[in-house]
């Protein structure tokens, strides 16, 4: 119902009150000066499978949110913070899909935390997210500690980025029509993810094959050292450039190394499962999130045009009842619009809540959030390794 009333309300306000505006407590952090948008970007895809040393494994950590969001106390702000927390789990999966689509990399997974077993760890912060603009801070480091990327990206959508009909007309569409129009593989901010993928590829192309092979070796030994620091910690050394390198290699048939590989395989089965959970969340969120972003875009555009309307308004005699009541009505409609938008935000949160609950419930035998379950699993594997090897694992 709200989804139907919002466009109507918008139309009424536009027609009857000249203008209105609101300052919706959205999770936005303005950057000064604004960084340029990425524009239209084509994804650099590989037509042939790259060489093995180029197939680095990537772990995309669930995105962070700006610290400013934590201190918000204004009524309704908790709704937008809740949406931002969902986006932090949703947007990494869009980036993951883009990297997979490029066909340039090894396995790409979304993970609750940085993982020592992967070659590249990608961390992101959502600086700003509305249906109109998206700003991401992205930092990528490889297992040796080399910084691949530390950059802020910004993308601005156009009306063409959103499939489907005009939102006002769409409010009268059937559910089937809505589903057809809204469920699409192309994200409105696809360009930002393509740009990140292209930048990563550009960085990889600057590196020598030996450097890439070293990245894989270091990540292998880093994971081994996590299982047994005493045994494998000394195989790694930080060079003058601050990067880790492997100083001594164990034989491929070394029993300890074979045990590490076995445990690592189990670990990868687990993180593949975790990645599937994020995929499931992504699939369940996608239809309502697409609709939410569309409304969010309309709302953001409304914000941008409010000043023009205010300046072009012709008021009746100042202080008269007509002037007072019109002034109050403009205020009232602006507030009503914001409250309708808040109700949509609440509706989005309600709709996605079961998927989030499911995400945290699905690992049987482990408890807590997915992040906690991930930590528990790593500890279990470490203990299994200790039992199997009889090693004195240093904590």
């Amino acid at each position, binding site marked *: 119902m709200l*989804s139907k009333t919002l466009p109507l309300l918008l139309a009424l306000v536009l027609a009857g009150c000249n203008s*209105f505006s609101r300052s919706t407590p959205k999770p936005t952090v303005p950057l000064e000066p604004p960084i340029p948008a990425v524009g239209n970007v084509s994804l650099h895809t590989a037509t042939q499978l790259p060489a093995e040393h180029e197939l680095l494994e990537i772990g995309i950590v669930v995105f962070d949110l700006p610290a400013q969001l934590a201190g918000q106390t204004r009524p309704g702000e908790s709704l937008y913070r809740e949406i931002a927390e969902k986006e932090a789990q949703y947007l990494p999966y869009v980036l993951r899909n883009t990297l997979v689509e490029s066909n340039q990399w090894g396995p790409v997974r979304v993970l609750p935390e940085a993982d020592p077993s992967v070659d590249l760890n990608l961390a992101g912060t959502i600086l700003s997210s509305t249906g109109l603009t998206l700003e991401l801070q992205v930092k990528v480091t490889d297992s040796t500690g080399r910084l691949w990327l530390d950059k802020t990206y910004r993308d601005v959508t156009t009306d063409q980025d959103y499939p489907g009909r005009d939102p006002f007309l769409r409010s009268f569409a059937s559910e089937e029509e809505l589903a057809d129009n809204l469920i699409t593989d192309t994200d409105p901010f696809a360009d930002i993810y393509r740009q990140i993928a292209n930048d990563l590829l550009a960085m990889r192309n600057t590196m020598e094959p030996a450097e890439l092979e070293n990245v894989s070796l270091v990540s292998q030994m880093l994971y081994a050292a996590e299982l047994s620091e005493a045994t494998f910690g000394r195989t790694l050394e930080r060079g003058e450039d601050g990067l880790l390198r492997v100083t001594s290699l164990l034989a491929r048939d070394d029993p300890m190394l074979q045990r590490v590989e076995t445990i690592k395989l189990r670990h990868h089965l687990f993180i593949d499962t975790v990645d599937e959970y994020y995929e499931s969340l992504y699939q369940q969120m996608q239809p309502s999130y697409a609709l939410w972003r569309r409304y969010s875009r309309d709302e953001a555009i409304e914000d941008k045009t409010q000043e023009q309307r*205010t300046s072009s308004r012709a008021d009746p005699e100042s*202080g*008269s009842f007509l002037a*007072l*009541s019109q002034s109050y009505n403009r205020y009232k409609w602006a507030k009503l619009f*914001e409250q309708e938008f808040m109700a949509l935000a609440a509706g989005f949160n309600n*709709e996605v809540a079961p998927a989030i609950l499911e995400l945290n419930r699905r690992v049987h035998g482990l408890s807590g959030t997915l992040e906690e379950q991930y930590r528990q699993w790593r500890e279990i594997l470490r203990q299994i390794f200790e039992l199997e090897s009889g090693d004195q694992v240093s904590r």
Partner: protein
Amino acid sequence: MVLLIKTRRRLLFPVAATALLLSFFGFSVQATAAEASASTNLNHPWRPDFSGSWEKDFQRSDRWENELTRQISLIRQPRSQPTMQRPTANIPLGGPSRRDSSIIDLARLAELISRQNVIDITQTENEVFIAREGDAALICGTRENSMQSFSSPYGTEVCGWERQQLVFRITLPEEVQILHRFSLSPDREWLNHLTTVSRQGSVPFNLIQVYRRFDMPGDGYNCTQTLTRGRVCSTESKLDAE
């Protein structure tokens, strides 16, 4: 709190008058039995519980025309007569050529914004939500003593708690100020809503509406708001759903 203190200074007369009226109707600013039903979480400041459905008691509520007549007669009294410290200078009474807001216009605005016959209030640990038919809801947090609850080029709203009273101060362009002040009777059966309207430091117009608690009949549905499917309802009770 600074904002509320300023408000208090500017509205010395209405506050004094309100205190008198509140005591007349049995409202009290002291801690009362109403406290017993409020949140007892030690981590949060104590707040009275306004939640419930409230319908206007027309017998006890001000009639805006009568209140206007009373205020005009007070304004026209000679200065020598004591009138509860009320300022009497430069009070425009209205007229076709006036440029300043008159008490009549303020009275009409006060009537316009306090027409609701029914108010529905929900209150949680974090928020109080006052739904008013035909108008935007008044929403305020319960943890902070004061906060900006709305902001737009068309006006800003600050809300806060003054002892057991919940206060909203709306500032519209051209220094039009609207104050909503809610308080409960000791037995929590009555809700007092004082609306004060002023403009550019003029004498404010006060209108008191008194509401009686009533039980809103339930429709038997358990509803949840969703984005893509609108309001989804079932006959399942909330306990069953859990």
